[in-house]
């Protein structure tokens, strides 16, 4: 189960990275590809660090489950992975990178609002 959950978390980050036009890394950080993917996904997007500790907690719970099959730990890891998936989904929508409903990239590009000129609001 812990392998499946870790893989699901990696898939969520892969979607974010692919939506930004990059190839998801196959490298690892501190023994986890998940942490390397997070680092890649947060490059240039500081707000993506809001899921940094969630990723670290997933790695921590993965390690915990190596020594014990405790149901509560497993349930917590499930919730952490779900949180990461929801967070990435929200980021995809807010950034117009998703390919679904009204936030899809194609529609966003068609109806993109005019850019505010540089310095227009500087008084």
């Amino acid at each position, binding site marked *: 189960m812990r392998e499946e959950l870790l893989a699901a978390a990696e898939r969520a980050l892969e979607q974010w990275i692919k939506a930004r036009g990059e190839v998801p890394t196959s490298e690892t950080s501190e023994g986890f590809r998940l942490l390397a993917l997070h680092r890649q996904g947060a490059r240039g997007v500081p707000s993506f660090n809001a899921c940094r500790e969630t990723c670290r907690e997933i790695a921590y719970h993965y390690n915990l489950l190596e020594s014990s099959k405790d149901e509560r730990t497993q349930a917590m890891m499930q*919730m952490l992975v779900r949180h990461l998936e929801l967070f990435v989904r*929200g980021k995809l929508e807010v950034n117009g990178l998703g390919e679904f409903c009204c936030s899809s990239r194609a529609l966003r590009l068609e109806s993109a609002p005019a850019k505010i000129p540089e310095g227009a609001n*500087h008084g």
Partner: protein
Amino acid sequence: MAYYPGCALEGTGHAYNESTKAVGSALGLKLDEVKDWNCCGAMEVKNIDPKVQTYLSSRVMSIAANEMHAKVVMAPCNGCYHNLKKAEYDLEHDASSRETVARISEKAGHETYQAGQVETIHALDWIKDGVGEEELKRRLKNSLKGLKVANYYGCMYTRPRHIFPEKDKGPGSESTLQPHFMDDLLAAAGAQNVDFPLKTACCGGAHTLSDSDTSTQLVLNILRAAEAAGADVIATECPTCHSGLEMHQVRAEKVLGEKTTVKMLYFTQLLGIALGVAPRKLGVHENVSDGMEVLKKIL
């Protein structure tokens, strides 16, 4: 100590304002509200023009430093705290921010804030450093013993790390990876902190209007995780997180049919109870979540 409540504490976070003041009074910590303060720039201004947000936050610090001659500004809202810290960082490291702030300050007719004139702290630092756990224990009137608490810090209290140079300095300092100041204070007040891995996870506050459904599901996940950890109550230290948890708890039940029963209370409300302040003075009745239900266990 200059006190910057920020806009939310006059609206949805009114109970946080009341309970912060009440706890300060009970602990003998004086607060002088920043005169004629303005919005810190929040998310709205920052998204359009970050330099205007830097200016707005700098004006608050300028009044504190140059008119009130304060050395420290305390901001209990994570958004305000974050923005003042960010402005401080920008003014120290970015010449164009300094130029913009100087220009607008001159137009507005007040002294330009210079980086380093004040230190911005959070309400957690205020109590942790101003009183500390041992003194807090000595002043307890109602122990929070028997109350299981999940401490929720939200995502802006520790991020991005570079704007909080005082954190991660070893024992005694706050950690950006595993914040613990709220845990420490509430444990000193007798509460039993539960192991809560989503303590800094996103509550969806930034896209609560643009994507309410995702926000509701993010909050629902936090609430479920707190319940799975055995918590009776989630302690909060940010008005945006707090109202988000409360409102989306209601929405999750209405829209998704998912009922959760964990309650939300500001950490200042919990400390106030421990210090013997009446729940009404702490604004517990203003919360959407019925905190009295769990407080009855200890009162």
